[in-house]
C-alpha cells in the first residue's frame, strides 16, 4: 500500500533544543497510528510541522506521493489534513457555526453551514446545535465541534493531539466509535496520547519519540502498556503505591460548601462535603471544567465561604484568607504552575517567599528576610531535586517537571497539616511525576491529610486511599479506592452517583 503520509529525516531546532531530530514516519491510508512520547519528546512540534504551523529546518514530507510543504494551516487543510488540538482552538464567545467556519477554507454562508453541521454531526453520532455559543458547551461537546469542523473539510489525515484528556470514560468510548467509522472509510488518524491503554484499544501501529528522535515502534495490539511506557521513558519506572498509614483524626472537613461561579465560563460549587483524615490521600477525580479550580480556590482561601463551610482541625476557616489558612497548616498548590502557583518572571527565592512567608518566618515587622527566603528556596531545590542553575533563576526558565517539583516541595517543606494539590503531575515527565507522587504519599504517611485533585484517573488509583468524583460542581460520596474499576469511576464522573 502506498503510504498516505511519509516523513523523511525531519529536523526542527529551537534555540537550545532540537525538538525533532531526523524523524521519519509513515502513515498508511485508513490506519490509526499512535505517536507516543513524554512531554518534550517532540510530538507537538512534529504535528505542527504536518499542519503547517512550524517550518522544518530540513527533511521532506510527501502526502499521497506528492511533495507536501504546507506553508500555513490553510495549505495543510487544503491538502486534506485536519487537526484536533489538545488545548481547543475554539472561541467561547462565538457560536458553533462561526467556530466551524473559521476552521474551513471556503465556508458556505452560515445558514447552509448550519445545515451541513447538522448533517455531519448526525452521520457520525456527534450531536451539535450550530447556534449555541461554544463557551456554554461542555468539554466533550467542544471536542465534537473540533471534530465536526475537521470532518467538514473531508480530511484524508486527521491529527488528534491528546483528545481524551478532557473526556469521561463513556465519552472516550463514543469518540473511539467515531474514529473507528472514519478509519473504516479510509481516513488515516495520527493519534497522540500518553494514555497507553487507550492506544492499545484503538491504534494499529505506534511510533515512539524520545528527546526529538524516533527510538522505536511498537505494536499496540501485542505489546504491554508497561513495555511501551518504558520505551517512552528509556528506563524503568518505579511503581507508586497508596499511602499505608492508618487513618487518624479528621484534619480537614468541608460542609455543604456552595459558591457561585467566579465568571461567565466558570463552574459553581454545589453542596460539596467531604472529610480527610490524617494519613489519608483523598483522590478527587473529574473531567476538566467540572469545578476543580473552583474547589482549590475555595480551599486555598482565594475565595471565601461561610466560616463553617471549611473546618480545619475542627476550627472554622471558610472566612480566612490564604495566609491565615497557611498559618493553620492548610496548604495548597494550584494546577497552573506559571502565573498561579509561581510568578514566571520572579526568581525561585522570590517564589519561595510567595507562600512560605508565614510558616517559615520570612517576614518580620513588614520586612522581608531575603537571606531566609534564599535558604528556604535552597532547601526546596535540594530536598526535591529541582534542576536549576541557582536560587536566583526565574521560575519560567525551569522545565515543567522541575518547576512542579519546586512548587510541591515548597508546600511540603512547610510541614502542612493538610495539603491540597490540583493536577500535581500535569505535563510533567515520568520521573518527576513519580517523585511527586511518592512525596505526596510520604507526606500522608507522616501524618498529614492530602487531597489530590486530578484528571488522571490512573494517578488517583495509584496513590489515593479514598476516591470521590467531581462533576458539574458536585462531589460524590468518597469511596475506598482499593478495588475501584474504571467503569464504576466513569459512572461516578458522569454524575450518576453524585451525592
Amino acid at each position, binding site marked *: 500500500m502506498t503510504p498516505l503520509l511519509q516523513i523523511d529525516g525531519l529536523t526542527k531546532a529551537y534555540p537550545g533544543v532540537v525538538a525533532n531530530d531526523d524523524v521519519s514516519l509513515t502513515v498508511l491510508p485508513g490506519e490509526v497510528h499512535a505517536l507516543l512520547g513524554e512531554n518534550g519528546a517532540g510530538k507537538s512540534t512534529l504535528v505542527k510541522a504536518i499542519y503547517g504551523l512550524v517550518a522544518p529546518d530540513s527533511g521532506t514530507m510527501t502526502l499521497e506521493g506528492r511533495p507536501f510543504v504546507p506553508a500555513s494551516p490553510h495549505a495543510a487543510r487544503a491538502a486534506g489534513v485536519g487537526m484536533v488540538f489538545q488545548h481547543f482552538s*475554539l*472561541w*467561547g*464567545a462565538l457560536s458553533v457555526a*462561526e467556530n466551524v*467556519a473559521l*476552521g474551513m477554507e471556503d465556508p458556505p454562508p452560515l445558514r447552509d453551514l448550519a445545515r451541513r453541521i447538522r448533517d455531519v454531526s448526525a452521520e457520525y453520532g456527534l450531536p451539535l446545535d450550530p447556534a449555541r455559543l461554544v463557551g456554554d458547551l461542555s468539554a466533550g461537546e467542544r471536542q465534537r465541534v473540533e471534530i465536526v469542523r475537521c470532518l467538514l473539510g473531508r480530511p484524508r489525515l486527521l491529527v488528534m493531539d491528546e483528545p481524551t484528556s478532557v473526556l469521561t470514560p463513556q465519552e472516550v468510548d463514543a469518540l473511539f466509535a467515531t474514529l473507528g467509522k472514519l478509519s473504516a472509510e479510509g481516513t488515516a488518524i495520527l493519534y497522540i496520547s500518553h494514555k497507553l491503554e487507550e492506544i492499545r484499544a484503538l491504534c494499529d501501529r505506534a511510533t515512539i519519540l524520545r528527546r526529538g528522535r524516533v527510538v522505536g515502534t511498537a505494536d499496540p495490539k501485542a505489546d504491554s502498556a508497561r513495555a511501551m511506557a518504558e520505551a517512552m521513558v528509556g528506563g524503568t519506572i518505579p511503581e507508586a503505591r497508596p499511602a499505608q498509614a492508618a487513618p487518624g483524626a479528621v484534619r480537614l472537613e468541608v460542609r455543604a460548601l456552595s459558591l457561585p461561579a467566579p465568571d461567565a465560563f466558570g463552574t459553581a460549587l454545589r453542596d460539596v462535603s467531604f472529610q480527610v483524615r490524617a494519613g489519608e490521600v483523598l483522590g478527587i477525580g473529574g473531567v476538566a471544567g467540572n469545578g476543580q479550580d473552583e474547589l482549590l480556590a475555595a480551599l486555598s482561601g482565594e475565595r471565601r465561604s461561610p466560616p463553617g463551610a471549611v473546618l480545619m482541625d475542627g476550627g472554622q476557616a471558610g472566612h480566612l484568607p490564604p495566609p491565615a489558612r497557611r498559618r493553620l497548616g492548610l496548604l495548597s498548590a494550584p494546577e497552573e504552575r506559571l502565573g498561579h502557583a509561581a510568578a514566571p518572571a520572579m526568581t525561585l527565592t522570590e517564589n519561595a517567599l510567595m507562600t512560605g512567608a508565614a510558616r517559615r518566618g520570612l517576614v518580620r515587622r513588614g520586612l522581608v528576610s531575603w537571606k531566609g527566603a534564599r535558604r528556604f528556596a535552597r532547601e526546596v531545590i535540594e530536598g526535591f531535586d529541582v534542576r536549576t542553575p541557582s536560587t536566583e533563576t526565574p521560575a519560567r526558565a525551569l522545565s515543567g517537571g522541575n518547576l512542579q517539583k519546586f512548587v510541591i516541595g515548597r508546600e511540603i517543606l512547610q510541614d502542612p497539616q493538610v495539603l491540597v494539590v490540583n493536577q500535581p503531575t500535569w505535563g510533567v515527565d515520568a520521573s518527576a511525576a513519580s517523585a511527586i507522587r511518592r512525596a505526596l504519599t510520604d507526606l500522608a504517611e507522616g501524618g498529614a491529610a492530602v487531597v489530590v485533585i486530578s484528571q488522571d484517573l490512573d494517578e488517583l488509583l495509584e496513590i489515593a486511599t479514598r476516591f470521590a468524583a467531581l462533576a458539574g460542581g458536585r462531589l460524590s460520596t468518597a469511596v475506598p479506592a482499593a478495588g475501584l474499576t474504571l467503569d464504576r469511576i466513569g459512572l461516578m464522573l458522569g454524575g450518576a452517583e453524585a451525592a
Partner: protein
Amino acid sequence: MPVIDLNWTAFLASVLVVSTPFLLAALGELVVERAGVLNLGVEGMMITGAAAGIVVAIETGSPWAGFLCAALGGLGLGLVFALLTQGLQSNQVATGLGLTLFGLGFSALLAQGYVGVPAPTIGGPDLGPLRDVPILGPALFARDWVVYLGLLAALGVWLYLFRTRSGLILRAVGEGHDAAHALGYRVRATRVAAIAFGGAMAGLAGGYLTLVRVPSWTDGMTAGAGWIALAIVVFGGWRPGRVLLGAWLFGGAQALQLRLQAAQVPVPVELLSMSPYLITIAVLVAISVRRRAGGAAPACLGQPFRAGA
C-alpha cells in the same frame, strides 16, 4: 456650531453634530478593541487629525483635502502604535498614553500658526423634500456630509464585523489569538490593520472638530473627547448599534450643557463644563456594576500576543 435659541430643531441638529466626532472615534476604537487591542491613544490620534486637517484645509482651501489628511494623520500615529505594540511588543497601556502625550504636543506644533484662523468648511447632501419636514427636517436632513458618513460608518462596521468572513476573523483574533494563530490566521497583520483603521477614524473625528464643529484651531481642543470615545465603546458593549446610541447620548449631554451655558442659566459655568466628564464616569460606574459577572469585552483585549514556537 453655535447654539443660541432654545428650540428643538437647533438642539437636535447640534446633538447630531456634537455626537459625530464621538461616533467616528468610538467606531474606530470599537474595531481595534474587537481585534483584541486596547489603544488608549485615541485622544492623541484625534488631536493630530484635528491639527493636520485644519492646516491642510487652510493651505489648500479644500476642506476635503483637510479631511483626507486628518485621517492620514490619525492613521500615521496609529501605525506608530502598531509598530510599538505589535512589532516591538511594548505595553499597550503605556504606548497608548504615550500616543496621547505626543499627539497633544505634536498637534500644537503642527498648527502653531493657525490658532483662531477660520477653516473652510463643507456642505451637505441635498435631501430635497425631507428637509421640509417640520422640526425634524431642518434638524436631521440638512446636516453636513460627515454626519451621514458617521451613520453609514456605524452600519458599515456592523456589516463588516457580523456579515463578512474578514470581520469574523477579526473577532476571532480578538476573542482568542492563540486559537486564531493555531488555525493559521495572521494575528499581527489583522491587528495592525484594525489599529490603522482606528487611527484613521480618530483622525477623521479630529478633523471634524476643526473643520466643521468649531471650526478653527486651539491647542488641546479635543479636551478629552478621545477618552469619552473610549468610554462610549465600553458603554456600547463593543456593539456598533449601541455605540451609536452612546455617541448620541454623550453628544446630547454635551450639546445640552453648551446650550445651558449659552442661555446663562444660574449654575456655575465650571459645573456645566465638567458635567460631560461626570456623566461619563457615572455611566462607566453604572455599567461596571451591572456587568459584575463578567462583561462582553473581547477576551484578549489588551493582552500581548506571542506566537508559541
